[in-house]
Structure formats: structure tokens, C-alpha cells
């Protein structure tokens, strides 16, 4: 019985599994290649692209979005989505900045408060989805508004500016560790940790299992609801980290901070090859996806193209990524057809 309902690691035979792994890896390699090629082409027109200060700037934005995208990837892997991340980022950014502005807490404690707040907001999402069975798109659409509403209640028309923050607090945005921008180092560390957790731990395999085939996961006795609760909590926590970094990077924070960012986060996840229907993809892909999008947006500015193109190009990139994903998964499904389990990432619903 169990042999036939294999989930995360479908089909005893070796090759489809390898094909899946190759496809996923290929997506990551494709992204790396795209970033390099695009970087080279843009640099011909706009050599400033490769200037250290510009690369730092791109990496800072990519890191903030990337950290949030790691959390989003975990949620999407379980066939859910968290649309509230941008409100979490905004609320955390404001609360941390406000607490610092009135000197209520020292920076380390304020940052910890921000991450903790993100965790709490994530747990609320998790309880709604896993506890009350509200579809995640509905639940987080609700909390998207609620968290932003709380932000407005606290902030009103107020804004915290660089001048209000402790001296040197925002310098962290330009700090480096062994020559690597601090934010990038933090993002890489977070991605590495979650990549290992997903690959090496039973929790990680259960995340894939829940998203890959919830019914089978239930039969196997995998505590799907607990897994979903945990990924939402982690997503909120990582959005909290992103919110803290957002505040450091931008310095000026009001109640509208990070509005619209969920588009970038979800785009990074999808472009990074995480299957929107759950069950396949990696956090490394999500991280590369955010780097790719940050590069595009930076290149558009440097090429002096109208920023009005930006929205359209984001949309186009997402469509292309999803289309490629659909084609790849269909091919894979055909290749493994006749077998009992559809390879991870196969069409469902």
C-alpha cells in the first residue's frame, strides 16, 4: 500500500525522480544564466550596473524580497498562499521604527520585537487556514487588509524618518561581512538553513508531501494541519525579518510601507520555479527569483527606460515563468504516465 502512495519521492524507479530534480535544478541554472546574460547585456549599455554601489543596492533589495520569498515558498509548497506578507512587512517596519524613534527599546530588542510580531501575525494566518479551514487565499486576503488597518491605526498620518532613528541604525544597510553586503549574507544564510531543513529533515519532506498530495499525506498519518500552521508561522516570521530590514534600508516609514510588495514576493517564488499548486520547488529558486526581479527593475532604471514599463514587465516575466512551468510539468507527466504516482509538480485539481 504505502509503496504505491509514495508522495514526496514518487515512483521507485530512479529516472523520473532524477528528471524532476533535473528540471528543478535546470530552473535554477536557467535563472543564474539569465541573470548573467542580462547583466552582461545591460552592462554594455549602462556600465554603472556593475559598480559596487549599484550591486550592493540590488542585492539589498533582492535580499529583503528574497527573505520574504523563502517564507512564501514554504507556504506555496503546501498548496497555500500568503497574500498578507506585504502588510506584515509594513506593520513590522513601522512598529520597529516607531519603538526606536521614541527610544522605547534598543535596536537589538526592537528588531527581535519585529521578528516576534511577524511570527505572531503568521500564526494568526496559520490558525485561520489550518485551524478553521479557511482557504488561504481568502484568509490572507482578509489579514492583508486587517494588518494594514492595524498599521494605519498605529501610525495614522505619522511617519518615522531617518532623523528620528538612533544614530547609525540605518548604516547596517550598507555594512558588509567579509566584503559581502550584510543583508545578502543574512539572506543567503536563511536560504541555506531552509534549503537544508527542506531536504534533510522529516519536516521538510512532510511539507512537500502535504502540498504534493494532501489525501495521501493524510493516509500516511502526516499531520497536515500542523505542518500548514508551522509554514504560515515561519512565513510570518521571515516577513518580520524582511520588515526589520525594510526599515533599515528605507529609513522613512509610514503606514503605507511595502504596499504592493506581495506581487514581487509571489513573483519571485513563481519565477524561482516553485509550483503554484504546491509540492515542488526550492527556496534557492525563490531566492534566485527575487535576485532576477531586482536585477530587472534596476536594469530598467539604469537603461533609462520608463518606469511605467516596470509593472508590465513584471507581469510578463511571471506569465512566461508559469507558462514554462506548465510545459515542463506536462512533459514530465507524460513521461511518467502510466505510473501510479504523478511526478511532483504534475497537474492537479
Amino acid at each position: 500500500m504505502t509503496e504505491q502512495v509514495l508522495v514526496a519521492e514518487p515512483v521507485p524507479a530512479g529516472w523520473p525522480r532524477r528528471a524532476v530534480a533535473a528540471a528543478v535544478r535546470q530552473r535554477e541554472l536557467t535563472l543564474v544564466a539569465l541573470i548573467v546574460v542580462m547583466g552582461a547585456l545591460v552592462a554594455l549599455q549602462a556600465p554603472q550596473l556593475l559598480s559596487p554601489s549599484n550591486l550592493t543596492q540590488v542585492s539589498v533589495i533582492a535580499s529583503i524580497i528574497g527573505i520574504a520569498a523563502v517564507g512564501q515558498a514554504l507556504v506555496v509548497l503546501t498548496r497555500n498562499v500568503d497574500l498578507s506578507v506585504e502588510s506584515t512587512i509594513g506593520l513590522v517596519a513601522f512598529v520597529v521604527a516607531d519603538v526606536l524613534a521614541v527610544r522605547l527599546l534598543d535596536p537589538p530588542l526592537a528588531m527581535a520585537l519585529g521578528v516576534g510580531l511577524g511570527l505572531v501575525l503568521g500564526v494568526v494566518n496559520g490558525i485561520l487556514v489550518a485551524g478553521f479551514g479557511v482557504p488561504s487565499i481568502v484568509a490572507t486576503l482578509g489579514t492583508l487588509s486587517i494588518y494594514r488597518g492595524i498599521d494605519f491605526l498605529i501610525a495614522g498620518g505619522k511617519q518615522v524618518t531617518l532623523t528620528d532613528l538612533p544614530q547609525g541604525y540605518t548604516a547596517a544597510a550598507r555594512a558588509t561581512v567579509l566584503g559581502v553586503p550584510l543583508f545578502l549574507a543574512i539572506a543567503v544564510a536563511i536560504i541555506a538553513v531552509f534549503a537544508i531543513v527542506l531536504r534533510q529533515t522529516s519536516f521538510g519532506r512532510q511539507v512537500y508531501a502535504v502540498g504534493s498530495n494532501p489525501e495521501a499525506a493524510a493516509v500516511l498519518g502526516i499531520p497536515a494541519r500542523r505542518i500548514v500552521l508551522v509554514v504560515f508561522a515561519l512565513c510570518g516570521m521571515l516577513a518580520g525579518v524582511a520588515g526589520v530590514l525594510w526599515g533599515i534600508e528605507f529609513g522613512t516609514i509610514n503606514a503605507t510601507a511595502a504596499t504592493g510588495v506581495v506581487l514581487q514576493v509571489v513573483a519571485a517564488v513563481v519565477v524561482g520555479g516553485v509550483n503554484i499548486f504546491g509540492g515542488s520547488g526550492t527556496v534557492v529558486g525563490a531566492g534566485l527569483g527575487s535576485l532576477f526581479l531586482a536585477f530587472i527593475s534596476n536594469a530598467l532604471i539604469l537603461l533609462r527606460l520608463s518606469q511605467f514599463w516596470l509593472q508590465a514587465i513584471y507581469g510578463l516575466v511571471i506569465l512566461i515563468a508559469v507558462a514554462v512551468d506548465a510545459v515542463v510539468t506536462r512533459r514530465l507527466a507524460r513521461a511518467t504516465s502510466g505510473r501510479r504516482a504523478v511526478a511532483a509538480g504534475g497537474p492537479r485539481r
Partner: protein
Amino acid sequence: MIARSIGTGRVTALGTALVLLLAACGGGGASPSPAGEATPATTAPAETPAESPAAPGGAGPNVVFIPKAVNNPYFDAAAEGAQKAAGELGGQFTQIGSNNAIAAEQIPFIQDATTQGYDAIVVSATGADEVAPALRAAMEAGIKVVGYDSSPAEGAYDVFVNQTDFSLIGGAMAQWACDLAPDCSGEIAILSATATATNQNAWIADMEQALQDPQFANLTLVETVYGDDDPQKSTTQAQGLLQKYPNLKVIIAPTTVGILAAAQVVKQAGVSDSVKVTGLGLPNDMKEFVRDGTTPKFGLWSVPDLGYLAYYVAAKLVAGEITGAPGETFTVPGLNNGQPYTIGDKSVVILGPPFEFTPENIDQFNF
């Protein structure tokens, strides 16, 4: 928040400018005024504290200010000036209003004020046409109505006190850029609000016009970018400007959000010595950057002076010294270099040219 269906282009721009200011009103400091919604936010008996508000027996008038919203640092600054004028004239100053800049919430305050025995109502209209009937009713009841900051519809006020001549802003910005660029030469760029912002576009057009003047021949306007009055977008766009134009000398931001974002970016990039920021901003936002040399000069109008002038105009209307007819002149101590003001077309009085903030005067302002 949106100034709807306002009569003239200039006034539309004015309403938008206010929206912009409201949106940008910063300063972490909590407003000291009480948050009561239907209660007078400020009551200043001025020099004649013994007088009962219902029967003002002092020499001066009993004037009520109804801003778009109370507990807003911008209007608090205007109230400060009005209070000073009340003190000088021996009049009464009261400020009432809603917490929200919404016409439907402002109208009841106007109607209440009409029945409370005030000599004059000074109002910043949340919606020019929406508040007009209530203001006309007040005028019919014999109360003088003065608009300030944001104009009510024509015919619904005796005099409108405009904060500045908007046509002077473009030229002033060109002059500031010239003053800040070494030898008045080099690349300059504009960081604006949204691409569709009426007032910003008008100012930018004026500025481009002004730059044609031979004295600015060595200034090159390389690009205008739009930060949508969003701190993050403005930051990204300002960072982009620094990357795109390594020889950039001045960033001009005719928006309070943009100028703050640009100053922060320039300061964080450590290029305050070679790239200067100017434009329109709030003194409290910009103090640090004025002191450290990132923004040695920028402009706006003096908001306390706006309240001060509005109170004086109300007092003169009440005293019958003026009626609000175009062509009438009057003087206000300490304003307009002591020269008389002339009531212009549509009964509008203009406070003066854009006010220039510098390291020498910045500390006198708190809004």
C-alpha cells in the same frame, strides 16, 4: 483627500498641494492638542481672558478657524500664527474641526460655527463645492468668511488667502538649483510625485521655462523621474539617479516626500558634498539635512505667516476696513516687507513668494 471639482486650475493645484502636504506631514512628535472630535481643539483667549466667548467685548474680533483637519502639524503651525495675530489685535481665536479631512465632516463644524456668534470663519476647504452652501449661509448670517490654504468655491468666501504665487515656484527652484550647483553649471535632475500630479507638472513646466534663461545656460536638466509620493519608490528613484548620472550636481524635488527621500539617499550614499538636494519640503523633515549641508536651501511657504495673515484679513473684514473687493489694499505688520497687500482677482490675497529655508532660519520653524 481629493479636492473634487474645484473651480479653477490654480485652485485645483492648490488643493492637490495640500493633499500632498497632508500626506507628507511628518514629525514623530505627537500633537499636543486633544483628540476630541467635536470639541474645540484650541481656544485661545488671547489678551482678554476675562471676556466671555459668547460676548466678546475686546477690541478685536471673535474668529474661528476650521482647518481641513485638526491635530495636523501643518495646521497647528498655521494656528500658531493666527494666535499671535489674535494676541496683537486683542481678538479671540478658536480652532475647531474634524480629525479627518473629509467635507462631510467639515460641514457640521461650519454650520455650528454659524450659530455660535463668531464674527468671522476662517476655513481651509476640504472640498471647494461641498462646503460652499454652508459658507454662503454663514455669509448671509452676516459672518465674514475667509478661505486659507485651500480655497472654497468662488462666491463662498469674502477673501481667499493663498499661501504663495504658484507661478513663482518654478523660477525659485531653478534659482536654488543654480545657487547649489558649483558655478551654476552641471547636470540636474527632478524627482517628482506622480506623473499626473497637476501642481508638480505645472511647477516643472515653469521651471523648464525658467531654465531657458541665459543665466542658467550651463545647467542641464537630464531627467525627470517619478517617486509617486511614496517613500520607497522615491528612494529607489533617487538611488537610480545617482547611479545613472555620476556627475549629477542637484536633485530638485518639488514634493515633500521626494525631497526627504532624495536627501536621505544622498546622505546615505555619502555624496552630500558633490550632490545637493533642493525643492519643496517641511522644515521639520529637513532640519538635519540643512545642517549637514545636503540641503543648504529649499522652500515652501511660511505656514505660521499664512495663519497670521488670514487672521488679520478676517479682522479687517469684521472692522469694515476692507470688503474683499478686488483692488482694495491693506497692510499687515511684519509681512510683505511692510508693503501693502492688494486684493486680486477673485478676491485672492497672496501671502508672498515661496519662502526660502536656510541654515540661518530653519530652527525658527516647527511644522
